[in-house]
């Protein structure tokens, strides 16, 4: 046996941050498992474990490359890091000089530890045109929960540190049990169920946990806010609200009462398709069996009424006093290392920068510090050229944004785009330069998502392939060339800087310690009853109270109270469209072994579900002549896609649940890796957006379905039935990895 070494690090297979223990032998990884001495107690999921197939993966990007043919042609040639960075420097400098810094856009994928680098780089360049998926994932929660807590989130208290676990739990449009997303961990949630009296699942389709929960509500996709308003209606009419909390600590109760009165359970039942008895039952459970918490999923943020929906859910929490109480919703006391986001918040977002944010005139919550991506797409298509240089890291805007066709058309018009990634994908194919990024087992970095009670360390276990570099290195190098005074000599200096608030803390020490956290008796509950937020007690809001009626929203021109609005396309809002497209479609189907657009090129994970699958009720399937396992067309007014049909009794008739964010890494570059074959965003609209956040209806629209014919399945991807083999990637393995 060779020389064995054990390494401890942190996983970012999703957002989570599970503790990881890796064993190497002579420098080669021979084992991966959970770190038992971590907050996730030695557990991990298939995504995290399958990172072993990222290491030495022949499809990994190893060298910087530049485009040597037209966009999307898949023709590339290897270049040096110096050439890549020189080009980026020159393009950025001339964009700043000729058109202003706001013409540089920095984009990212879902928060994977690089949020603060994209934001810091943008702010240091003096642009706020940051493109993130935040507006359809997590930002609405951060911003609207922030109207209660001042900054950041209300988290579910799954830990028992205050002496109690949640007695009633609502899982709203979320399956936390299959993904540690958005700063909450699957493992914590599942453990807390050992103390739970009522588990209420609100999800258009059945899940394993919904089958066994106390209550399962299946709303028509896009109607969640009506459900929340009706629950408040029941709670108020039955006198079940938390009088002590509402009388002493809230503002606007009478107005809220007036607002929810018309939304009776009967009316909500008509809107949501949830039987009124279930609405009443859920309301009573949440109000009577306190403390309770509500885990809100990002599917709600993929709806054009997301702002008011989250406001409604927040008011529901407050109405039942489920705020800052042990076992309810809480904002965490930070670890001694402080708020990791200070790394970019310390650079000011000036009025000048703000004035150039694309979409700020319309979406005052969502486009306050990042731009509205859909507005940007429309601007580019209308002939403006608001973006001259686009630096993209990780994310696949082509995949996750509404109306894929328009997104591709717009992105192809961007004069100069750089993309950083581990593999070639749709965004890389649209770029001019692609930079190879390191995997989390190949880099040192601080990991954090958002203001939660801990930050963690990524420790390098093995070297990245070829000349791949960590994203922190890439951003620091670009930053250094343009605004050297705001960046760092070395990556280690940058890491030291980020943990400097900890006593005697530096990167080396933090890397060994793995976690800087604050838990157990050190967490503070009932902050509003202490001087924590305000001398003499109170919330960090303009009124010092928990605001049912939000003065801040009113100031911005929004309705200060939660309200219900139909989706842009629905049986109610567009009855004519409904005649031709009679199925309510949502794209909220997630598999535990994929994370958004990721991992369809990882053989182990691909083996678990080779093709994107959509669920429909047996009667729906029968009606349209589709059998289980068949390929079917799903068509909307914008386009059509193919997904495999899964006949599934756990979904309402007339509703379809499609798998989101899918492309085929093995399909050729010219097709943007098959992004038009199965991706539901080919079907979604970018014309009807949330007034606060600009979020499109990604999870509620109308479609029709019909079976695919043999001749409809001509792409390569349909020609294999062998599970777990990722076919050779279309085009240019040699150009990408070997040549030069």
């Amino acid at each position, binding site marked *: 046996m060779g020389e064995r070494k054990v390494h401890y690090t942190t996983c970012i297979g999703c957002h989570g941050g599970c503790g990881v223990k890796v064993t190497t*032998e002579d420098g*080669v990884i021979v084992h991966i*498992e959970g770190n*038992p*001495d*971590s*907050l*996730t107690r*030695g*557990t*991990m*999921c*298939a995504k995290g*474990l399958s990172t*072993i197939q990222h290491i*030495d993966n*022949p*499809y990994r990007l190893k060298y910087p490359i530049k485009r040597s043919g037209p966009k999307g042609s898949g023709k590339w040639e290897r270049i040096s890091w110096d050439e890549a960075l020189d080009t980026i420097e020159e393009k950025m400098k001339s964009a700043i000089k000729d058109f202003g810094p706001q013409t540089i856009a920095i984009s990212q994928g879902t928060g994977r530890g690089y949020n603060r680098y994209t934001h810091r780089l943008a702010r240091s360049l003096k642009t706020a045109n940051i493109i993130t998926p935040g507006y359809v994932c997590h930002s609405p929660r951060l911003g609207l929960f922030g109207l209660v807590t001042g900054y950041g989130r209300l988290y579910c208290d799954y*830990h028992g*540190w205050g002496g109690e*676990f*949640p007695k009633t739990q609502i899982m709203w449009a979320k399956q936390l*049990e299959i993904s540690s997303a958005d700063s909450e961990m699957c493992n914590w949630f*599942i453990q807390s*169920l*050992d*103390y739970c*009296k009522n*588990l209420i699942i609100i999800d258009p389709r*059945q*899940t*394993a*946990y919904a*089958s066994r*929960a*106390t209550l399962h509500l299946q709303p028509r996709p896009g109607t969640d806010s009506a459900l929340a308003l009706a629950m408040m209606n029941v709670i108020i009419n039955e006198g079940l609200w938390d009088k002590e909390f509402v009388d002493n600590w809230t503002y606007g109760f009478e107005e809220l009462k007036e607002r929810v009165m018309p939304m009776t359970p009967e009316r909500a039942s008509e809107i949501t398709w949830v039987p009124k008895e279930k609405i009443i039952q859920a309301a009573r459970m949440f109000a009577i069996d306190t403390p309770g918490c509500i885990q809100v999923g990002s599917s709600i943020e993929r709806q054009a009424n997301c702002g008011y929906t989250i406001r409604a859910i927040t008011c529901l929490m407050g109405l039942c006093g489920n705020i800052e109480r042990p076992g309810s919703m809480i904002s965490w*006391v930070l670890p001694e*290392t*402080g708020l990791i986001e200070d790394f970019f918040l310390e650079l000011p977002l000036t009025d000048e920068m703000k004035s150039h944010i694309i979409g700020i005139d319309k979406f005052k919550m969502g486009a306050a510090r990042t731009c509205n991506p859909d507005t940007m797409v429309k601007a580019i298509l209308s002939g403006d050229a608001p973006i001259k240089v686009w630096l993209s890291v990780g994310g696949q805007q082509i995949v996750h944004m509404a109306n894929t066709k328009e997104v591709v058309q717009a992105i192809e018009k961007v004069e100069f785009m750089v993309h950083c990634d581990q593999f070639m994908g749709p965004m890389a194919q649209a770029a001019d330069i692609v930079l190879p990024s390191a995997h989390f087992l190949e880099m040192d970095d601080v990991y954090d998502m958002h203001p939660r009670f801990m930050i963690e360390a990524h420790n390098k276990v093995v070297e990245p392939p070829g000349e791949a570099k960590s994203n922190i290195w890439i951003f620091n190098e670009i930053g250094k060339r343009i605004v050297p005074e705001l960046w760092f000599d070395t990556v280690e200096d940058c890491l030291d800087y980020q943990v400097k608030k*900890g*006593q005697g803390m530096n990167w080396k020490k933090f890397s060994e310690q793995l976690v*800087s*956290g*604050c*838990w*157990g008796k*050190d967490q*503070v509950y009932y902050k509003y009853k202490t*001087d*924590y937020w305000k001398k003499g007690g109170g919330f960090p809001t303009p009124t010092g109270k928990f605001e049912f009626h939000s003065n801040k929203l009113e100031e911005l021109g929004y309705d200060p109270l939660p309200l219900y609005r139909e989706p842009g396309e629905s049986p109610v809002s567009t009855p004519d469209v409904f005649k031709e497209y009679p199925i309510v479609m949502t794209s909220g189907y997630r598999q*535990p072994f994929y994370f958004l657009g990721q991992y369809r090129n990882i053989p*182990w994970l691909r*083996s678990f579900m080779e093709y994107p699958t959509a669920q429909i009720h*047996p009667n729906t399937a029968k009606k349209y002549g589709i059998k289980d396992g068949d390929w079917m067309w799903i068509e909307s007014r914008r386009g059509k896609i193919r997904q495999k049909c899964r006949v*599934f*009794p756990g979904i309402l008739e007339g509703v379809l649940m499609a798998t989101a964010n899918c492309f085929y890494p093995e399909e050729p570059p010219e097709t943007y890796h098959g992004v038009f074959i199965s991706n539901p965003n080919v079907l979604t609209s970018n014309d009807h957006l949330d007034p606060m956040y600009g979020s499109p209806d990604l999870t509620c629209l109308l479609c029709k379905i019909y079976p695919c014919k043999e001749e409809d399945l001509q792409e390569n991807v349909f020609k294999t039935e062998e*599970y*777990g*083999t*990722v076919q050779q990637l279309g085009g240019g393995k040699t150009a990408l990895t070997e040549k030069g």
Partner: protein
Amino acid sequence: MRWGMVIDLTKCTRCHACVAACRIEHFLPLHVTWPRLLALETDAGGKPELTTFPVRCNQCKDAPCVKVCPTEATTQRPDGIVVIDPNKCIGCRYCVIACPYQNRNFLSKEKDPGYFPGYELTGFEKKGKKLYPHQVGTTEKCNFCVERIDAGMEKGLIPGKDRDATPACVNICQARAMTFGNLDDPDSNVSVLIRDRKGFTLQPEYGTEPSVYYVDGRIGGKESNKAPLHAQTGSNMQHLSSVDSDAKKRFDGLA
């Protein structure tokens, strides 16, 4: 002593981590998988239900595979674990047919094309060839991570309690859906679960007496939500705790 496993169907989320953990633990060839997940989506009397049965070799007490093996390659250890000696296995596949649970895999050449066919093996795969060789032309299956059990017990560890002596799939499960222990001890963790929650085996009518049991039930209904002391203190991580000192100062004296 008879090792057994209890799988709680109320907890399994169909996440596939157990499958991935096994693939790592035993360096499984690309198309070989020892544990599997049986995904059921049923509609009994208009009551839809989604259930996942994680299945693997049942280590049956009365194992048909042992009986049919012509070369004594498949044997049962005194602790109940059924093992295969690849040096004796001639690949006749009688056992694959005899197993009523279809939990045996014949390793053909096609099942081991490497993770990335047409490319060089990864470092992990190359190491695996030495550390856990798989013999093409033989039959394989779950062995309850017998290597971990033996090595752990040699160090005085207890399987099912101490991580280093416990099967990899049990350790990795985020939901803690799997429990491992001694079926012969009426007070063991597994025996208590089987007794208290009416544990059952798959297809008992075959009469093979599987060592893998299942329990099912509802989520919720717990009488108390009071946190035990270890949960309140976060004792498992307290040694790593560090507090926002300003917050603490503000809070001190107010509590």
